[in-house]
């Protein structure tokens, strides 16, 4: 047997072993994920009913006000956090090539990994006198968690856009701000959307900062200045209670939270997939197309 054949066989074996090792690691990583999902579905399924998701905790024994509270918190937090985060990311990536930009980037990195309870307490101590325990105070805390995350992912997404496109646009005599708006953002959009999505998904699951800001409530929140229940906090309170009903409620709320985040993810994925280059994107007038076909 020649040397070439022997080394070839060895290489093939090594390749096989490495592939098998990689695959088994994937399986190991998936087992806890899948078992959580299965456990939540099995235990939470029994709790699901129309009454469960449409009634507030009092009266009715549902989690309707917690679902609405989570949606409201995510909505108001995104209203503050997404624009600030995205604009910060754009600034750092496109205009932040200076000391100020580098400082912002440094603080983004620090705050993106800050313990969320600390941010919750910070929001509490800064704004409690203005807003009281309320959806707004909770949204401010969640927005503070979102901003550095969104800024970092936006910056990353814009850095992925090839520099040659930026130069192409500038060389056409397009001003810098318009180049950023029409070329950089258009080409980095899907990364930016993914980053925003991850940030929203993350805050939807936050518990500790909400506990010290939006608190908890058994009733429908009638305005953004009311405290509210939210799914993570509802899970927490119910899980602490040893009664069978409360345990069932906790699993049910967990299932609803997972469904909420998952369906949100799927919807946004579908929307952004359609936004890649396709015929919606063309700005060619119909008459032009007809004209060019006739002249053919």
């Amino acid at each position, binding site marked *: 047997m020649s040397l070439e054949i022997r080394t070839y066989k060895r290489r093939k074996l090594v390749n096989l072993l490495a592939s098998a090792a990689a695959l088994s690691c994937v399986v190991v990583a998936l087992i806890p994920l899948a078992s959580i999902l299965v456990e939540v579905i099995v235990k939470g399924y029994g709790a699901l009913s129309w009454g469960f998701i449409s009634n507030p905790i009092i009266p009715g024994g549902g989690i309707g006000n917690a679902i609405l509270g989570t949606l409201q918190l995510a909505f108001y937090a995104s209203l503050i956090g997404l624009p600030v985060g995205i604009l910060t990311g754009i600034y750092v990536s496109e205009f932040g090539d200076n000391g100020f930009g580098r400082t912002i980037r440094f603080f983004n990195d620090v705050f993106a990994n800050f313990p969320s309870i600390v941010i919750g307490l910070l929001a509490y101590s800064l704004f409690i006198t203005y807003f009281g325990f309320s959806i707004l105070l909770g949204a401010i805390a969640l927005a503070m968690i979102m901003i550095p995350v969104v800024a970092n992912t936006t910056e990353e997404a814009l850095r992925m856009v090839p520099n040659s496109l930026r130069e192409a646009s500038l060389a056409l005599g397009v001003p810098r701000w318009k180049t950023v708006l029409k070329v950089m953002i258009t080409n980095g959009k899907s990364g930016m959307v993914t980053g925003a999505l991850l940030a929203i998904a993350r805050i939807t699951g936050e518990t500790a900062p909400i506990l010290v800001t939006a608190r908890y409530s058994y009733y429908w929140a009638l305005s953004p200045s009311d405290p509210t229940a939210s799914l993570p906090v509802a899970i927490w309170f119910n899980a602490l209670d040893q009664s069978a009903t409360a345990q069932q409620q906790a699993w049910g709320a967990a299932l609803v939270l997972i469904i909420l985040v998952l369906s949100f993810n799927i919807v946004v994925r579908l929307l952004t997939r359609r936004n890649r*280059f396709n015929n919606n994107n063309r700005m060619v007038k119909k008459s032009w197309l007809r004209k060019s076909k006739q002249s053919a």
Partner: protein
Amino acid sequence: MAQKIETERLNAYFNSVHAVKDVGLGIPENKITAIIGPSGCGKSTLIRCFNRMHEVVRGARVTGKVLLDGKNIYDADMDPVLVRTKVGMVFQKPNPFPTMSIYDNVAAGLRLNGVKDWDRLDKTVEKSLRLAALWDEVKHQLDASGVSISGGQQQRLCIARALAVEPEALLLDEPCSALDPIATAKIEDLLFDLKNSYTIVIVTHNMQQAARIADYTAFMYMGELIEFGVTKTIFEAPDKELTEKYITGRFG
């Protein structure tokens, strides 16, 4: 003979690297001028100074003058954005906007500068694509993505895109280095046709290309302009020994 672009004591730097040294050069109007020289000699940097694209890079700096029709484009009251609409540029690697259709790519310069008149856009797109000798190949697929066509077609699309803003001069930075000989020949023919109405400066590694298409040739070495003159003279009877060595392939 009229000089379209003239440089006076032009120096360009990247941080501490002195890339272009004291270059004084006159680019004749409505002619093709080739800039040749070994890699890293400052050719690309030099032409990037002609439309103020050099300063886009971090740490880049320019001293001296670049006169466009006698006016220094580095004067404080000159807007680099306006300079770039007068002096267009085509890059080494074809870089159409991938999210835009062929039509939108050509129209990009006008649309991004606020032109909304569809008739004018239609006319400009057709005219520019015809000038770039691409019209017949893409007229049925104007709504296809700008990156769905071949590399040679993409490069002509980039030329059409640059022509659409109606510049007076066109800078090409090794436009054919990523293309096969057939696509290269098409671009050379195209440049030959364009020189009646445009001042063209082309940076090239390919000396045959310079000899084929350029009226004038400049030879650069280590950031300095060694020799500039009529192409025939540069290739057949250069003044400087260095030029002759490079032309005959004894270094570089």
